[in-house]
């Protein structure tokens, strides 16, 4: 019944990246939620499996944005950055700075 990409495809490509990006970065919640994502990532416990997967998928998506499924990220997040790649680059910079 839940029609979100991550609900229909819990094991689909980049499901965690898209789900967390929608949860914290969609414009309807951004001003309230984005600072919460920054805090969650910075204070993430090693056992926070969702953040571990999120980081791994973010790294993979940045390495090859063409692997993202169709327009799912753009539809879920509706960023102002101009492209999925630009959004992901900003996200990585904000969350992980110069880490590689």
């Amino acid at each position, binding site marked *: 019944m839940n*029609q979100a990409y991550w609900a229909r495809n819990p094991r689909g490509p980049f499901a965690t990246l898209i789900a967390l990006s929608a*949860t914290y970065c969609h414009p309807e919640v951004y001003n309230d939620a984005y600072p919460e994502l920054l805090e969650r990532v910075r204070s993430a416990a090693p056992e926070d499996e969702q953040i571990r997967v999120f980081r791994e998928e973010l790294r993979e998506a940045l390495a090859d944005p063409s692997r993202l499924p169709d327009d799912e990220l753009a539809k879920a997040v509706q960023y102002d*950055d101009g492209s999925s790649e630009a959004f992901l680059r900003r996200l990585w910079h904000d969350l992980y700075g110069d880490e590689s």
Partner: protein
Amino acid sequence: MEYLDKHQADRPWLAIARNCPPEVQRIFVALDQRGGHAHIRHERWVTEEMNERRVRNLHDPAQLDPAKRAAGIDGLTPGDVQHRCGNIATRITDPEAFAMAFARGVEHPDVRAALDSNGPRPQPVILPISAVLGDDGHKSCSGWQLEPVNGSMDEARAFRRAWAVGDQSGPGPRARPVETFEGGTVTFAFRRSAVGGYEVSTMHVNPADEQPT
């Protein structure tokens, strides 16, 4: 209700509830006393013109200071923070339908599970409009959508942001009414509640072509 009377002047989105049945009024009051903005940005008090300006120029209906609204300043975030909007700005046009959608939505098992969760902020739940408003529920929805730039919504949103914060000479962003919400969805997003647990941060309807494929 006392709360509606007390906030008649400072919370104009409550005026719509004054002539509604008591059970609808109770939902509006409960929403307003919590932290969500569904009834402030996605309900009938937001006019067609306000939604058109929101999606085209990032003018926030929740911003009650006209100068700040024109400057694209968010009305619900502390400080002078820029307002944000996606491809569309939508509303449920009937307050009783809005209240019904909310009441039915929070009873849906997926929404209930999110509200009852204890971990990090729950992921949004996206349901068919028909699940909360019935088969004709889409008729109670309206909205405006940003027009693509060079065939791209990514470019359109970036152009709108640049326009909103920069030089506004020349042609600006364009928007058009959503033709139909038939087959559309309603999104429930969540935030931590001041009284513990989670609450609905917002509830907004989406036309069919805006939902995930």
